[in-house]
């Protein structure tokens, strides 16, 4: 496993904090969106878009690129912000999110947005679609890797496990599923709505290699992604424990902020907390 230098970890972690603010600004401006599950996934999406994925903003349709499916499509504000900073489209476009005629839809649309590999929004599809992409890669003689980010609530969908069975049958080591395990879904805590534990054992039972990490720790995310690529002969599930609403104290660990935008005062307080995080990097106080 390659060693990730401290400077890289810090650089990516700083981006992750900036993306949180970008996403929250977008949600506030549009008065719609999903703060909780966007904030929880920031380190994971940052690590993928800015480091792990072999992608080229100049060639979003490049055949050999790694694929990323945001199966939990409701976290798209953060992905849009990441793709913009990565150069897939102008950051100015983020302001148009959700406006009639915008290339940025309420949930990801592969036909409208450069850098979006698959249309998502209805939960559950990413694993099976990702499996299909892996099978195609084998037939086409391409060696791209497919990453699928799923929510924990999404792990309640039957079709997700159907996809896992297919990935297992064909031993799709090119597939890495990352579970953003923030333990909170739209209507309440996951363990109350429909318990998933033991979630890791479930993925193991579906013949996935499993890696358990703190998904809000950039170094752990980077290490896990590298390890997943090295695993042969079976797909990998990274169970990434995260905090719903990570980075904004009053949004953390509550379903209230799954799908509601902050009002002006709430946004001011949230932005202040996130700016404080970013400032620590700017002033060099972190690590």
């Amino acid at each position: 496993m390659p060693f990730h230098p401290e400077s890289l970890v810090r650089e990516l972690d700083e981006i992750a904090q900036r993306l949180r603010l970008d996403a929250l600004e977008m949600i506030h401006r549009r008065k719609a969106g999903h703060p909780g599950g966007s904030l929880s996934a920031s380190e994971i999406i940052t690590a993928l878009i800015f480091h792990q994925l072999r992608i080229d903003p100049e060639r979003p349709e490049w055949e050999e690129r790694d694929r990323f499916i945001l199966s939990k499509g409701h976290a798209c504000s953060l992905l849009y912000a990441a793709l913009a900073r990565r150069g897939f489209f102008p950051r100015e476009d983020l302001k148009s999110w959700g406006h009639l005629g915008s290339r940025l839809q309420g949930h990801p649309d592969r036909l409208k947005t450069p850098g979006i590999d698959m249309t998502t929004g209805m939960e559950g599809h990413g694993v099976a679609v990702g499996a299909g992409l892996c099978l195609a890669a084998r037939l086409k003689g391409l060696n791209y890797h497919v990453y699928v980010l799923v929510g924990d609530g999404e792990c309640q969908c039957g079709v997700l496990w159907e996809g896992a069975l297919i990935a297992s049958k064909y031993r799709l080591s090119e597939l890495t599923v990352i579970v953003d395990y923030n333990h909170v879904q739209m209507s309440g805590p996951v363990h109350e709505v429909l318990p998933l534990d033991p979630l890791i054992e479930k993925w193991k039972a579906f013949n996935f290699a499993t890696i358990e990490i703190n998904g809000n720790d950039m170094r752990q995310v980077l290490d896990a992604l590298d390890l997943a690529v090295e695993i042969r002969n079976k797909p990998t599930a990274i169970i990434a424990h995260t905090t719903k609403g990570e980075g904004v104290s009053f949004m953390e660990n509550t379903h209230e902020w799954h799908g509601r935008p902050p009002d002006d005062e709430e946004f001011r307080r949230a932005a202040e907390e996130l700016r404080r995080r970013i400032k620590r990097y700017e002033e060099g106080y972190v690590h």
Partner: protein
Amino acid sequence: MRKVMSIRKAYGQTLADYGAENPDIVVVVADVTSSTQTGFFEKRFPERFFNVGIMEQALIDVSAGLALGGMIPFANTFAVLYLRAAEQVRTCIAYANVNVKMVGAYCGLSNFKDGPTHHVECDTALMRSMPNITVIEPADAVEVSKFIPKIAEHKGPIYLRLTRAEVPVLFDEDYEPEIGRGIILRDGSDVALIASGVMVSRCMDAADELKNLGIDAYVVDMSTIKPLDKKLVWRLSEETGAIVTAEDHSIIGGLGGAVAEALGEEKPAVLERIGIRDTFTETSLSYEELLDHYGMSINDIVEAAKRAVKRRG
């Protein structure tokens, strides 16, 4: 008597033959290899054949992934089971506009012996109402064989509705169907019978009987139900003013519905619809008996045509 041939066998054999020409063709089945006769393809191209078991939702999603990766998947399950995967079809195939060919086997009442759970009267209605999806129901073994390369080479999602039945051969080998075009099998002047699938040959027989009654009936094979060949419908409306549709599907939302919409939009005519009349059906020992029982007999078509001519005045 016309020669009778199996539509699904023609489908399976042609797909295997065409697979030799086009290396991008892959076949995905949800445990229906023998029902869809895709074993021919599996035998020749095992590396391009994926049996995913009884999971219709992931059948659609994994096929979408294969298409995103540049393959041309033919997804196979029973027509009724596309209802189970309806949201997958809408989000991952239709809305994402992914190049998957969805094959619905055992459509209508053609799986007579397994009963109403295995019959389907609303698959065309479902598929037809989704943007981007083309709906095709061939009338005989020649037509399905001729359609396979055209379906594969058409860019975009297609729903191919196939009967389990063996049906009379209507076309000769020179016939070249076109997606989006109805074909006139028999010229007429008094009434037009517009049909799809197994009902096309029943309409041919009905037209013979109508001739004996002094009624000249057009017979049209409307193999593409969406996009509907509206120009042809309007032409027939102008010429005859009396239309009969016939399909092994509900009279709501399928071919009859599509023709009614087209007529109402531009050139109204008297319309009679032959099909399943908004009812669930029963098990039977024969497909023919079921079609007859539920109002799709040759005599039902004849009577509908007579009514249409009379109503037109």
